[in-house]
């Protein structure tokens, strides 16, 4: 039967995979992909608790704001990635050692 635990397990797997992606990949865009996975794990937790525990819609609202913040974060992060590529000609994370060229 579908219960809170099944959603929490999926969310846990997503969080761990996102963490692994963030740690193991050297491409900056791949690190942003890991961040998206972690944010989605958190949003899924909010909606699951909203259905099974509190039984109101506050979790949905919080999940919507997480999506909004994730969109803003992706826009700014990818702008920084593109600017970094214009300066360094690469997007390897180990090349990012100083704030100004």
């Amino acid at each position: 039967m579908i219960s809170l635990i099944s959603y929490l397990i999926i969310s846990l797997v997503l969080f761990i995979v996102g963490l692994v992606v963030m740690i193991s990949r050297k491409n900056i865009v791949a690190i942003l992909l890991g961040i998206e996975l972690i944010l989605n794990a958190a949003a899924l937790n909010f909606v699951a608790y909203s259905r099974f525990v509190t039984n109101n819609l506050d979790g949905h609202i919080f999940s919507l704001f997480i999506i909004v913040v994730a969109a803003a974060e992706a826009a700014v992060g990818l702008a920084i990635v593109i600017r970094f590529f214009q300066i360094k000609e690469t997007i390897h994370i180990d090349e990012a050692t100083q704030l100004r060229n």
Partner: protein
Amino acid sequence: MFAQLLFLLSAVLTVGCAIAVAVTKNIMHSCIFLLGSLIGIAGLYATLGADFVAVTQIMVYVGGIVILMLFAVMLTGGKDFVSRAQNLLGLAPSMGNKWTYGIGLFVGLVFLLTNVKLLSNIMKSYPVKTFGNEFPSTVSQIGHLLVKEHVLAFELSSVLLLGALVGAAIIARPRKQ
């Protein structure tokens, strides 16, 4: 029964694609697998009765963020990014090869045939079934919550989005040396 099937499919899609994101070496393929994972999460939202959040997830993530990521990957590919485009019939270089065109044509034909013949017959002979009222629509309640209790966060998110838009445009603009 339907909800459990949807839950199982969405869970497998979400977890499988998420693990594929971590395992795949090609960053382009990682982005595509992330897209599958996000669609699976939208399905999980649907099984939780969160229809508005599920649709927003698909619109914002699949339609916006993943496309943005793909653009960033292609803009920052540099010299590692080798074009594999082949000429079809010796004409101008095209976006795909004969396999992609063949698969696209096949899928299009199947879609057309199922749409025109099979689906119309099925729709005529079987009336649309409703799945009961287990999950009432949450859209109007979310709308009321957004403009009553959570109005401050709602307005602040608009300021955040404007700031992110202007900031991204300023950061990424080309500068004169």
